[in-house]
């Protein structure tokens, strides 16, 4: 058999039969036994397969190299977290290009911020920011976010030294910000904790059966009126195929530029296709086990979060990993206990219930509005309780609690009502509310808005926000300093 191959190899190219050239050498020699021809065909098939695999490996390596050289394919930045729902992939270079543009590294603690030390330097006033994507500011370079610009402005405006820290994360709601404070922020001993409150935040905190809500811990209020922190919704989400896919591909999502590109593009060019969702769902559920099997030998994903480093690294499946499950339930128990304690410390009076004008009779619109208003009131009542608890936790940690309300359109009547409630709450509970909604410039709906790309601030929007926040903080701190003197 070997001699047959050598015979072919020795022949000049012009004398080689076309079928031999195509690799199917066995077919060129009629009269050979069937098993011999089968063997030869198998060999040529193997050679084709091997060369194809070699091509694939070479191409993947080349493409990864090109993408890395040009700084492309760094789109992934979300990590599944069994306590908070999602966090940033720590120490990860991220290119954000879907609204504005930025290219920054997430710090080692998993925040979109500069590296920072746990211990505060003497004489420094530390200000921690909690918030969602508006505060995270992935749309602009780190230096242009209002958190960083505020630090520069505060340092320029006063003799003291200020240090701002950004703990914000896209899609976070009030409960996540509250948990984030208990788990991580208070360890940094901030002098001021600023919660940047956004339109819609209140609708993201109460326990829900709506699967469209982003994954998060939620609160529920029992029949006895007690508030409880619940992770049921989060656990259901973790068990979904797309979450398992994200978990199992964490190593690839972190290191492979090709995978990041494909995932960021939702596998295809972005479109609002009606075919897209079902196809992606089936891809996620069918590819997830294969990916899991393929990456079984690769290094395990980095630590999920600092608070369960002690129990070692999870193997990629939060629901299945015993060590993570145990540690997660320990952390969750601790958080629930602390929540119960804080809830017992606050007064349970609620903001005013919005009144519905029934003088004109209850039309269908009024009824719909009343239902919506009641739901909104219920959501805000729970949110107000979480805010009171956060204020108490801040006070206990020696940090002053401040709320900044983000700007929204004037037509968002509920939000305007919420801001009024927040201000009343602030007066009652002793925290300040900086109403950026009131101070932010209004743009005619037909004009080009220089403050927003789409839903998020441009550099100019961030600069205006920084002006509002730093000015108010300086006034607040100097008033307190003069009062204490």
């Amino acid at each position, binding site marked *: 058999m070997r001699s047959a191959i050598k015979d072919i190899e020795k022949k000049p190219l012009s004398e080689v039969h076309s079928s031999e050239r195509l690799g199917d050498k066995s077919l060129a020699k009629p009269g050979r036994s069937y098993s011999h021809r089968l063997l030869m065909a198998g060999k040529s098939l193997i050679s084709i397969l091997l060369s194809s695999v070699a091509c*694939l490996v070479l191409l993947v390596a080349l493409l990864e190299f090109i993408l890395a050289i040009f700084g492309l394919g760094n789109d992934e930045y979300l990590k599944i977290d069994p306590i908070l729902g999602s966090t940033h992939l720590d120490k990860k270079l991220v290119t954000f290009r879907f609204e504005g543009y930025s290219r920054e590294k997430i710090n080692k603690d998993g925040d979109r911020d500069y590296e920072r030390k746990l211990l505060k330097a003497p004489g420094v006033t530390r200000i921690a920011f909690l918030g969602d994507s508006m505060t995270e500011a992935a749309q602009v370079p780190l230096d242009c976010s209002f958190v960083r610009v505020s630090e520069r402005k505060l340092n320029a405006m006063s003799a003291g030294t200020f240090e701002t820290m950004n703990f914000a994360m896209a899609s976070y709601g009030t409960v996540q910000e509250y948990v984030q404070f208990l788990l991580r922020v208070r360890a940094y001993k901030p002098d001021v904790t600023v919660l940047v409150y956004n339109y819609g935040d209140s609708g993201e905190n109460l326990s829900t059966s709506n699967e469209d809500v982003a994954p998060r811990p939620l609160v529920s209020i029992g029949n006895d009126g007690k508030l409880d922190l619940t992770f049921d919704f989060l656990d259901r989400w973790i068990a979904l195929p797309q979450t398992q896919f994200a978990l199992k591909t964490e190593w690839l999502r972190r290191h492979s530029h090709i995978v990041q590109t*494909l995932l960021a593009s939702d596998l295809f*060019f972005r479109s609002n296709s009606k075919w897209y969702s079902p196809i992606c769902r089936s891809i996620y559920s069918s590819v997830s086990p294969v990916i899991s099997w393929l990456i079984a030998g690769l290094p395990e994903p980095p630590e999920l979060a600092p608070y369960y480093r002690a129990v070692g690294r999870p193997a990629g499946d939060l629901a299945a990993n015993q060590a993570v499950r145990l540690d997660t339930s320990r952390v969750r128990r601790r958080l629930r206990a602390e929540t119960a304690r804080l809830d017992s410390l606050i007064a349970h009076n609620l903001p005013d219930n919005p009144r519905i004008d029934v003088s004109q009779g209850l039309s269908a619109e009024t009824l719909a509005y009343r239902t919506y208003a009641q739901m909104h009131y219920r959501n805000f009542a729970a949110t107000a309780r979480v805010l009171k608890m956060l204020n108490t936790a801040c006070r206990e940690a020696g940090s002053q609690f401040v709320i900044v309300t983000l700007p929204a359109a004037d037509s968002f009547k509920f939000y305007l009502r919420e801001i009024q409630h927040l201000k009343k709450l602030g007066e009652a509970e002793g925290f300040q509310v900086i109403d950026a909604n009131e101070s932010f410039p209004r743009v005619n709906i037909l004009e080009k808005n220089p403050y927003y790309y789409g839903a998020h601030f441009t550099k100019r929007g961030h600069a205006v926000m920084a002006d509002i926040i730093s000015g108010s903080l300086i006034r607040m701190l100097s008033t307190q300093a003069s009062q204490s003197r």
Partner: protein
Amino acid sequence: MLFNSFEYIIFLAAAVCLYWVMPRQAKAIFLVAASYFFYTYTIKAYGLLLLLLTLANYLVGLALQATNGEKAKRLVLIGGITLNLGILALFKYTNFILDSINVVLDSINVSAKHGCGISDLPIILPLGISFFVFEFIHYLTDVFKGSAAIRNPVRFALFASFFPSQIAGPIKRYQDFDSQLDPLPRLDTEKLHRGLWLIAQGLYKKVALGDNLARIVRAGFDNPGLMGTTEGWICALAFTFQIYFDFSGYTDIGRGSAMLFGFSLPENFNLPYIASSLRDFWRRWHISLSTWLRDYLYIPLGGSKSEGFRTFANLMITMLLGGLWHGASWTFVIWGAFHGLGLAVNRRWEQSIERSARLKRIAASLPLRCAAYGLTFLTVVLGWVIFRAKDLPEATGVYSAMFSLRASSSECTVLDFAVNSPLPAAISIYLILQSTVLIWKHSHDLNAPLPGSMFKLARATPPYAIANALAFVAVLILTLSLSPAELQPFIYFQF
């Protein structure tokens, strides 16, 4: 359906697979059905318009063939052309005419006094109408001149609706297209390879380059008052390249898609920005339109047979109508007039060179040749500003930024989008890929005896095909990694 969408990728893959497994007799009907599906994907009603226009032109074509006598034939032709132009005018120019009447009424205070302002009609421009109407006019004119009409209704319907060229050209010549149906193309792996590569190249041009440049252009044209001189020029240059990458990218995808079915569509671009004169530019830019305008407008008007004012007038009429074809707006009319004037000056200069040996010598010198390339490019760039602007004040704003020697406002984001975006990487990768392809082409003579035959042998093996397919996927991934946030429709879709 957009060429750069998820739907199109699925649609094309399915259509190509079905087409090649289908019996030969059914292939043409299948392509017509696929083309109508493609065309009616967004708005169903326009399928009916295309169908009726196709039917009308098919019948007019047959009538032209059957009619004896020059006068009667001419009447049929005029009827056919009027029908096509009437439909085009109705959909494309009605609101433009109404707006213009309103402006006139406003200027003489009639509308204010008598309250007789005319409101716009709710007309949505059918996709590709300018392109297929021009194809119908070409068909009728050529049949009138003696070419054979297409007798087979399916073949005529396919010529009228072939989806790779349906929305934004290239404007086909029916003789070239119909001859490819007789017999229908056979499966050709070489064409499949070339088609796939053209699609990949087109997507890269459109998504990675065109769409990233679009952000700079939008930032500049939306706020011309904020731009300084540098930003003004960057913005104008960005549009110059955006429109090239956008339109030539579309053409590449269209031609590549046609190749997957075994068809060839005409080339539409030939490195237009290295043109040595404006005349040369129009031989390289949107070739299928410029040759159409030459054959069916400029030459029938008399072309350059007569000297002096008559030729100038022919040029101006051709370019004014060429400008108006692009869109129902005065900016397009001015753009057409600008190019008409440029072509007239260009023609005058060439005539002067022809007459004077001394001028000929000077014009052939290196500095003047370089100046000719530079001047042509500059003229084209200046023309694109008015082409892109939505109205005259916007165009004036950009021109004023370009020529006023002023600094930009701190709120201007043109430079920001040029630097802080995937654009620098997209341009670098494009240059590297194009250089590699050029070097590869020059170093591999496929007809050479030894390395060439080795290369051919390699091409015949499955690993080559696999490597080719993988490289295609790699270019698609590169394109995805460079795509900006917003999916932009093709610029020429609006025409």
